[in-house]
């Protein structure tokens, strides 16, 4: 892997390699919190133009467990937007010797911009760009599903995943749909019509407007956060009405299959898309998703940065 910009760039085999590597790393560091010397001397910059708790901390923890040096760069409050100023930031990071940049940006395509322009030599990892993609979240979700329903091996064939709620604004949903389908899972989107993007037919997934119709058949119930900060229009009448139609309540959970699991990428709006009892129930793997996030991000950092990088290989003339 050269960069990780989008799930669309990954082959099925590459995706499974990330999951297998993460599984091995999770097993090795289980409970010990031990560090690997693998990325000693490499510098990872967390470049966050948008707020984030778990993704930034997760990348920081992952990089530190591999002994990399971590620099956190928060651009909150600055007037940075796309184009020239992102370029200047990139040039600065290049000058500081960043080997990898983990970027979160409000503009879709920011990570691509950083990688495709020759501003800096390092690896670029997309940690969420606008409403486009959030590939490491999709990988950690797939990892969590595989761990619970496929004994941590192979692909996700035979698994039916329902993604519920604000599909329209969700980069998590976009990356998840791409990855889940790549891994052979069946995906159904469940949301009010106003929160389903135009052109959804091209994604080749099921679409339903009723959670009650679908919930009995799902192996994975993935609730998405209602992204109030991105909602400039009225997408549903009231929060109570949304919760009644699409909220994951304990009544609905009783309808679920015996082995099925509840997921949420966080942060949760308790009482809106998921009730407090559901979030804290036995079926919920939401806290585990966070722990798995560290292993998956370690795997991504290892696979992009652990060996010789593409540029180093190109200059040494060795083949891949």
């Amino acid at each position: 892997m050269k960069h990780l910009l989008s799930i669309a760039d990954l082959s099925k085999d590459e995706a499974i390699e990330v999951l297998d590597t993460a599984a091995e790393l999770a097993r090795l560091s289980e409970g010990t919190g031990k560090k690997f010397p693998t990325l000693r001397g490499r510098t990872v910059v967390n470049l966050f133009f948008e707020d984030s708790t778990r993704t930034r901390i997760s990348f920081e923890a992952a990089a530190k467990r591999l002994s990399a040096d971590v620099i956190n760069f928060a651009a909150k409050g600055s007037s940075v937007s796309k184009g020239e100023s992102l370029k200047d930031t990139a040039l600065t990071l290049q000058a500081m010797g960043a080997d990898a940049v983990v970027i979160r940006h409000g503009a879709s395509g920011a990570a691509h911009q950083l990688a495709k322009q020759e501003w800096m030599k390092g690896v670029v990892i997309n940690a969420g760009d606008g409403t486009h993609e959030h590939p490491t979240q999709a990988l950690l979700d797939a990892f969590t599903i595989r761990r619970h329903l496929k004994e941590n091996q192979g692909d996700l064939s035979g698994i039916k995943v329902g993604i519920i709620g604000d599909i329209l604004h969700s980069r998590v949903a976009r990356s998840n749909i791409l990855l889940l389908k790549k891994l052979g899972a069946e995906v159904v989107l469940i949301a009010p019509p106003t929160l389903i993007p135009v052109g959804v037919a091209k994604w080749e997934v099921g679409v339903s407007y009723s959670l009650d119709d679908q919930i009995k058949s799902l192996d994975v119930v993935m609730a998405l956060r209602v992204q109030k900060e991105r909602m400039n229009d009225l997408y549903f009448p009231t929060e109570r009405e949304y919760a009644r139609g699409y909220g994951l309540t304990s009544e609905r959970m009783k309808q679920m299959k015996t082995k099925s699991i509840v997921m949420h990428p966080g942060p949760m709006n308790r009482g809106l898309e998921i009730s407090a009892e559901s979030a804290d129930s036995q079926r919920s793997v939401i806290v585990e998703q966070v722990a798995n996030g560290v292993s998956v991000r370690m795997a991504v950092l290892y696979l992009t940065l652990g060996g010789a990088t593409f540029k180093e290989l190109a200059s040494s003339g060795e083949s891949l």
Partner: protein
Amino acid sequence: MSVILNSGEISRALRRISHEILEKNHGPENLLLLGIPTRGAYLSRRIAGAISEIEKINLESGTLDITMYRDDLRLKAPRTLLPTNIPGGSIDGRDVVLIDDVFFSGRTIRAALDALNELGRPKSVQLAVLIDRGHRELPIRADFVGKNIPTAKEESVRVHLSEIDSVDEVLIEGSSQ
């Protein structure tokens, strides 16, 4: 390309190594066999099988992946991680025997010592290899050797094991003759 050990010779060498491991450690009680994947893991399993047979016990064999500790990571594209599996969970206080197929520069074993260091504090660490081909670059030696084979540096030694290569044999290739 020529065959330097055939199937019978490999199994006799492994049986002798099994006896030597038992003799040096005064029995199997505190032993922990760790094979270095890929082929070291299969050799380790065979040695564990032989020891179990000799001592009428059931000795498990484990694996130790050293990828994350290699000193040549930066020279190649990232490698796939292989499983690490420690029977009994801990290496603390045990007599660890590392098992690998070909012993060459010694760098693999140096990485394995680093990996062990992260896992705990064994009572002792010993090394068993099927082939010692010389050309050490580090001050490391083997305790148990199947066969010493003098080689030229540009030659390569290949170990084939029936578990993954369908035959048991050791080949040497790339010599100037």
